[in-house]
């Protein structure tokens, strides 16, 4: 079983192979071949993840670090003591993530085969999807922060590619799509900035980026942490202790050791910070990255716009997997967050606030996918808040359940949209009239009564709704309840303010969740069709509905993997905290929560109450002629609804106070620095003009005046001299003869000069 661990490179390489095949041979394979390759690759990755899980279970949940053959010495700089190998980590957390990603991913791949049918860039879509899988899996299986960063960036790239997949749609829609893609990338970039800084500081502090080395076990035993025992229990024999402190330990164990020792300082050249402060810094920077990727405040604005992409993309990336990368990262760094209390507080505050605000905004949206987008943000807020209060296992549990039902909801919405488009096409028989220009297949106001027309979609959607609302026995109940419990406990037991505040906020957010989800169900499926398109909508094909059914089943059942302790009957039946126990082996600070009957009942009742309230607001009469939302008509809720509909003017705020100033500054800088200074001044005045002056000087003064004149002058002088000298040639022979004789006389006199001088007496 051990050697199953060696299969882990394949989990990345098989989707890579799939995407390469589709990339180069996509056209030839056709839709059928491409879909087989893509779905097959994803499915095989899932199979390998299952094998790894089995191997984990059978080998006592030991973590394994597997080197990849070629890139084993990925970055090695001996002179700077830098060694970052490309190594895969197989432990419970990474296996969990792998299963979630590949499992949900395969189903979504299958769904996408039907959804994207007929698209002219069909192969390219699946290339991008597989690429996304590759990067996501690198992210979750990496053994060091740099590999995680590689995956992080890669999924950001894939989100850009996939959101803007329909960049060439006419009528300005293509521009909207590509704008959304750019927004996603740029906003993520802001978060990535924080992550990179965090990684660099981590490297500087610890000298390495590995989580744990090969064979290294997390230092803190779980039980000791829970019962308040001293944190430090040496996992290594005493004599290796001194060597191990600064030796080749992973990042987390080093941190533990330093925290125990205390007084360790990190020298940053100009300043020297204590280790605790450094950890706070690192965790805050990681948080910044998480807010970007996992769409928290303040960087969540890209997620609603990202709904411009195809629905499978929204489902896979923006519901199930990519957005959970931030949560995964923070859970992976649980050692840091556990130690940095201030950061945990900030994390919880941000998460809870985000959950509430996003839930509020979702109430006022008309686009079906927008509602789900804000819902995703809200649920992510739940997960982040869970991390903030130290409920790492709860966060991952909610991540898994959320992946299932959110994917279900998105795929269901995709099915609805498909049906609406179909119906519209049918209704107008292909001739779209002028009055129908404003028809939007995604707008809730045009839907209605689809319960009869699309029953499978309706029932699966209903399952998803109940799951997300947290109604027992659906999956969402278990995970959401755990989070609420843990946050309350954090407040009660440890006296953390974040616990209390978080609890209240999260509870309110849960109420909102139930309300807007039922609103959506009412508007889509209940009542009478409000538009011809809805009247003619048809159920989607089997290839789309089968994943829906599977996901619906999962939404019902997956909650049972982590029955809290103390739950009657089911706890005995299914085993308590199966999932948390599984996670504990890799997340040292994961702890299980006991069941609080009171809280659970209160939460369920609250959710049911919200659903009832929604049902009463969106009753049949309101649903019949829906022009305005009933909440908008009600004077008391009018203001709130307008705010919610306008997304709390968040984007406008950003534009006014961030984007426009930035852009104006960029324009100004471009104008002043680049054009006026660099181009006009430096290039033209400083460089070009002296150069031109120099060449002109050389050309005119040197070349023309001096050189040309001298050479021409030579010629002229020669000519003038010749014209004067030629007068010597008179043509008369005796003149010549005389000159000859004269010359001879001269020569003679010269030779006889001494004699002449003697004779003259000189």
């Amino acid at each position: 079983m051990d050697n199953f661990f060696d299969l882990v490179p394949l989990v990345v390489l098989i989707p890579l192979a799939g995407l390469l095949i589709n990339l180069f041979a996509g056209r030839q394979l056709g839709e059928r071949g491409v879909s087989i390759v893509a779905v097959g690759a994803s499915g095989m990755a899932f199979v390998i993840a299952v094998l790894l899980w089995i191997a984990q279970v059978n080998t006592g949940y030991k973590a394994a670090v597997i080197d990849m053959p070629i890139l084993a010495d990925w970055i090695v700089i001996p002179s700077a003591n830098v060694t970052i190998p490309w190594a895969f980590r197989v432990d419970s957390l990474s296996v969990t993530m792998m299963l979630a990603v590949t499992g949900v991913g395969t189903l979504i791949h299958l769904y996408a085969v039907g959804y994207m049918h007929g698209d002219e860039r069909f192969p390219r879509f699946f290339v991008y999807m597989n690429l996304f899988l590759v990067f996501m899996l690198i992210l979750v299986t990496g053994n060091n922060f740099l590999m995680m960063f590689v995956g992080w960036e890669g999924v950001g790239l894939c989100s850009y590619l996939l959101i803007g997949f329909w960049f060439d749609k006419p009528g300005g829609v293509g521009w909207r799509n590509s704008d959304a893609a750019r927004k996603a990338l740029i906003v993520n970039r802001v978060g990535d900035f924080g992550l990179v800084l965090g990684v660099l500081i981590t490297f500087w502090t610890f000298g390495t980026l590995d989580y744990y080395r090969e064979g290294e076990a997390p230092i803190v035993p779980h039980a000791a942490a829970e019962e308040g025992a001293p944190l430090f229990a040496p996992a290594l024999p005493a004599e290796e202790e001194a060597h191990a402190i600064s030796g080749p330990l992973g990042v987390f164990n080093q941190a533990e050791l330093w925290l125990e020792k205390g007084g360790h300082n990190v020298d940053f050249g100009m300043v020297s910070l204590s280790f605790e402060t450094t950890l706070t810094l690192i965790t805050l920077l990681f948080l910044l990255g998480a807010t970007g990727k996992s769409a928290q405040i303040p960087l969540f604005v890209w997620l609603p716009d990202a709904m411009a992409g195809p629905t499978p993309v929204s489902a896979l990336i923006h519901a199930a997997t990519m957005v959970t990368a931030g949560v995964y990262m923070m859970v992976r760094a649980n050692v840091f967050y556990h130690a940095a209390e201030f950061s945990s507080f900030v994390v919880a505050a941000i998460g809870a606030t985000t959950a509430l605000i996003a839930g509020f905004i979702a109430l006022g949206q008309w686009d079906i996918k927008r509602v789900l987008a804000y819902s995703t943000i809200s649920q992510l807020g739940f997960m982040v808040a869970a991390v903030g209060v130290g409920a790492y296992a709860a966060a991952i549990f909610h991540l898994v359940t959320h992946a299932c039902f959110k994917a279900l909801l998105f795929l269901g919405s995709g099915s609805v949209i498909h049906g609406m488009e179909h119906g519209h096409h049918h209704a107008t028989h292909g001739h779209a009239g002028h009055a129908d220009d404003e028809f939007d297949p995604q707008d809730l106001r045009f839907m209605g009564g689809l319960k009869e027309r699309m029953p499978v979609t309706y029932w699966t959607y209903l399952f998803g709704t109940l799951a997300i609302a947290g109604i027992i026995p659906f999956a969402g109940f278990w995970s959401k309840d755990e989070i609420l419990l843990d946050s309350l406990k954090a407040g009660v037991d440890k006296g953390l303010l974040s616990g209390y505040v978080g609890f209240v906020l999260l509870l309110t957010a849960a109420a909102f969740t139930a309300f807007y989800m039922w609103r959506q169900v009412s508007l889509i499926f209940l009542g009478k069709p409000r538009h011809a398109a809805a009247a003619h909508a048809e159920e989607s094909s089997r290839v789309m509905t089968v994943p829906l059914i599977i996901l619906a089943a999962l939404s019902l059942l997956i909650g049972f993997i982590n029955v809290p302790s103390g739950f009657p009957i089911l706890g005995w039946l299914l085993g308590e905290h199966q999932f948390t126990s599984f996670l504990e082996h890799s997340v040292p600070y994961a702890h299980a929560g006991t069941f609080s009957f009171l809280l659970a009942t209160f939460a369920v009742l609250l959710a049911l109450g919200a659903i009832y309230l929604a049902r009463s607001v969106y009753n049949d009469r309101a649903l019949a002629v829906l022009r305005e939302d009933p909440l908008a008509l009600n004077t008391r809720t009018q203001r709130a609804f307008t705010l919610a509909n306008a997304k709390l003017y968040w984007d406008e705020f950003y534009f006014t106070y961030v984007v426009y100033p930035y852009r104006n500054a960029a324009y100004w800088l471009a104008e002043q620095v680049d054009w006026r200074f660099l181009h006009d001044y430096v290039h033209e005045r400083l460089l070009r003009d002296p150069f031109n002056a120099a060449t002109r000087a050389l050309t005119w003064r040197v070349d023309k005046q001096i050189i040309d004149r001298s050479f021409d002058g030579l010629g002229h002088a020669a000519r003038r001299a010749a014209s004067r000298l030629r007068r010597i040639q008179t043509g008369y022979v005796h003149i010549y003869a005389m000159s000859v004789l004269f010359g001879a006389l001269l020569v003679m006199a010269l030779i006889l000069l001494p004699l002449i001088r003697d004779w003259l007496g000189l």
Partner: protein
Amino acid sequence: MGSSEVAVELYVLLSAVLFIMGAMGVLLRRNAILVFMSVELMLNAANLALVAFARQWASGAGHLMVFFVMTVAAAEVAVGLALIVAIFRTKKSIDIDNLHMFKG
């Protein structure tokens, strides 16, 4: 052989005077043929000086030089007179003051 009564300087002086007279003839006369004859006079003066010195130094090379000079003079006279004849054909005059076509 032996010293003669007439010193070699007298011969040389005579040769110089004859040379001068020849030079004056070359420069002053306008008839081309007379110019030529003056040139011959100059050559002879030179020959005289050569022979005088040949005896002084008892060298046969002096005689040989005179021999060559005479030969060259003969060649020169032949060509020169041929030129004068050719010029006369076109210009109908041998006044050298009229021969300045090579004026530069």
